[in-house]
């Protein structure tokens, strides 16, 4: 086996936000850094190239952020979405870090902007990246290159060589053995691994392998190879291996990298029927941004893991324009035929719903009083009769955003074996997100976690080789609450 002669201080495995943050910090500390990205250059950046914002704590208005979003409120939000599956000290560290990290991000070329039109509800909590995640990733790569980080694309790592919980070398798919004094794993979850997903979701009572009908919203390169390797090597893990963040997206999205634009935002304005032409859940339970993750799971439970969002002309122009045209028809029967569900059942479902709609004042910007009475499931808000041609149907499928399974870690970002932290092997980003986000999700928290742990892991990996970061300590001690 060929061993590479150049031995970097820090080897960073991965090429998304977490890996880049680590590489930049380690390099700033003076360490020599080699980065291995599994993707070719044109697909670099993992799921990070699809992101749009960062959730930021702030005590007062901060450039693009309005009002205040104090630590406590952020923490309560996180506590709520995770249902307590979080580690408070680590979570608070991430939260506090988010209040001070943006100058550093700017220094490396990231630009922020006020919220995108249609996302004003997060104007207070989230700072948006101008141009989105790919612009962010591009900026970090440019900065890393300028600072002298060596970057190799098309370099998937197959396994690691470990000795007593210490990193020795990485072995690439092509068989190259790369030694380094320390290593940061920033290679995402296992969401892109269809085989593993199939296993994790298992077979349902209808005998279907649920995950076979899933779409992956992000990269195809997060195959979880090193996650699996670390589990097999006995590393401490965290997070439910059978869980994933799963949202309802347009069924016509590509298998990978459909990203943000494939979402369907008209669910709450109409009804949703499954393959049997039946409704199955309250479409108007809450605002769509608060419900789209629940709908991923709901659709996953339907036969064929598919469903259709049905709206009429009245809804047009009231939701973010979808990327694919809906199936359009002048009558509801025709629509049923076009989407291939049983027209008779479909009409029964819609007639029952229409008959149940109570008079009210429709307001899609508030939890209004338009609801149904006497139909199951009820629709509790925005329930309006579906009667105005043309009618539209948008097909839905579950789309996987990320998985929760990861490496157990502490405030240093170290990987752990039997509760003992490694001195030179660290992990960051989605690989450790489960420590803070055991389940659920709230917009922008993935990047908060990835940026915090990415920077911390990079600094500590460099420190383990004798390179102290010149300025980070103050920021870190604030984040760590010292």
């Amino acid at each position, binding site marked *: 086996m060929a061993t590479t002669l150049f031995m970097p201080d820090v080897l960073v495995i991965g090429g998304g936000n977490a890996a880049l943050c680590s590489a930049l910090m380690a390099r700033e500390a003076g360490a020599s850094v080699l980065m291995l990205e599994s993707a070719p250059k044109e697909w670099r950046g993992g799921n990070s190239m699809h992101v749009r914002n960062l959730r930021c704590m702030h005590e007062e208005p901060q450039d693009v952020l309005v009002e205040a979003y104090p630590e406590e409120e952020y923490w309560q939000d996180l506590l709520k979405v995770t249902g307590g599956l979080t580690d408070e000290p680590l979570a608070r560290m991430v939260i506090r870090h988010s209040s001070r990290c943006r100058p550093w991000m700017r220094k490396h070329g990231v630009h922020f902007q006020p919220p995108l039109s249609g996302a004003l509800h997060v104007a207070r909590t989230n700072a948006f990246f101008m141009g989105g995640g790919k612009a962010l990733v591009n900026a970090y790569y440019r900065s890393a290159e300028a600072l002298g980080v060596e970057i190799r694309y098309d370099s998937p790592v197959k396994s690691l060589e470990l000795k007593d919980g210490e990193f020795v070398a990485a072995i690439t798919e092509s068989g190259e053995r790369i030694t380094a004094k320390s290593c940061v794993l920033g290679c995402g979850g296992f969401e892109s691994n269809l085989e593993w997903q199939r296993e994790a979701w298992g077979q349902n009572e209808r005998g279907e392998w649920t995950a076979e009908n899933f779409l992956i919203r992000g990269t195809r390169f997060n195959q979880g190879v090193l996650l699996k390797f670390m589990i097999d090597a006995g590393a401490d893990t965290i997070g439910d291996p059978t869980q994933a963040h799963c949202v309802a997206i347009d069924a016509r999205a590509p298998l990978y990298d459909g990203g943000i*634009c494939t979402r369907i935002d008209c669910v709450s304005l109409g009804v949703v029927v499954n393959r049997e032409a039946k409704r199955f859940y309250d479409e108007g339970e809450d605002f769509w*941004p608060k419900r789209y993750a629940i709908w991923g799971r709901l659709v996953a439970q339907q036969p064929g893991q598919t469903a259709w969002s049905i709206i009429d002309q009245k809804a047009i122009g009231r939701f973010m324009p979808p990327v694919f045209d809906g199936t359009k028809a002048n009558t509801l029967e025709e629509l049923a035929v076009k989407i291939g569900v049983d027209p008779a059942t479909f009409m029964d479902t819609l007639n029952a719903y229409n008959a149940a709609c109570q008079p009210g004042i429709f307001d*899609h910007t508030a939890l209004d009083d338009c609801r149904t009475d006497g139909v199951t499931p009820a629709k509790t808000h925005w329930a309006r009769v579906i009667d105005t041609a043309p009618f539209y149907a948008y097909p839905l499928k579950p789309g996987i955003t990320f998985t929760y399974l990861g490496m157990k870690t502490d405030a240093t970002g170290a990987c752990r074996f039997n509760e003992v932290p490694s001195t030179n092997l660290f992990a960051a980003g989605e690989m450790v997100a489960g420590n803070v986000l055991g389940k659920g999700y709230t917009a922008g928290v993935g990047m908060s976690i990835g940026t915090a742990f990415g920077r911390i892991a990079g600094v500590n990996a460099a420190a383990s080789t004798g390179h102290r970061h010149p300025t980070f300590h103050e920021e870190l001690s604030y984040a760590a609450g010292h």
Partner: protein
Amino acid sequence: MPPVTDLEAPVVGGACEAGVNFADALTAGEAEIARIMQICNACRYCEGFCAVFPAMTRRLEFNKADTHYLANLCHNCGSCLYACQYAPPHEFAVNVPQAMARVRVRTYQDYTWPLAFGRLYERAGLTVALALSGGLALFMILAIAMNGRLIHEPLAGDFYVIFPHNFLALLFGVVFLFAMLALAVGVVKFWREVSPTRDGNLADIKAAAQARVPAVAEAVTDVARLRYLGGGHGDGCNEGDDAFTLWRRRFHHFTLYGFLLCFAATCVATLYHYLWNLYAPYGFSSAPVILGSLGGIGLIIGPIGLLWLNLKRDALRADVKQNAMDRGFIMLLLLVSATGFALLLLRDTRFMALWLAIHLGTVMALFLTLPYGKFAHGIFRSAALLKFNIEKRMPNRLGLGGE
């Protein structure tokens, strides 16, 4: 959604399913803009870069006029290509600047006056070459016909010994006025189609009327500062890759203001001549020579810089078919300024007549091609920016909910 490849063929229906009547049938290039805008409209990550995306979010569908408007609003800065998560090799193959560039040049053609001259854009290199050789030949022949030769005893820089002033004023005046007329007719046709009040809706007309003054002021600053070559964050636009640079804007400033200074020099000289009976040659410290020299310097630095950037630009985002038009125009500007300086230096020598003929020939070529080449971009872009600034002050009819 595969990219559309045959750009000339009309596509009925386009990217939006709404019943499109045949008069509105989109060409393949326009349909490609509509297709891409539908993706961008569902994504919107690039909203901060320029005016195109905010204009897009006011629409759910993109008809022919919308595509023409957006194509001319795009400055081809490149930011949204490098930032695009759906750019090739992604199967959505989103490439906004290229789609816009392809339709942009078609709009110059479609709105050309007289319409038959629109074909000149298709052979832009040839057009420039013909205009140039025609202009040169014309003045060489005229010089010989009027004076019997091109090389002569020094004439103390008195151009009008070679060509009488009124003759030049008439010749260039007529050509220039024609060029301005042709451009004006073209842009009026364009404006009629994209006008923010095209629907004739009374509320719109009222809102637009109120918006006019501030909109004009903002459009003028957008043009004068080339705001949208700044990339939204002020770091500039892209050239060969995803790195930002302000040099395109700077070189364009040299070019544009150089052009305007040269134009001012001519206007001042005309005033001198007719109002104050001050005749050329003017001293080195006179207003026309100073203005002309400063402008000329701008028109040397600017076009050289733009040419350099043009040559190293990423072909992925350009419409390579337009290289001839862009580079032809750049070369013509450069020739005008270079021959102008040569004339200034040689005006007291035996070669004045020769250089005068060469310089006037290039200026003539520039004037002749103004309405039928790259110059049109300045006019159409300014019109699109004006529309943008009016439209954004009008109420938005869409009421999109939460996300």
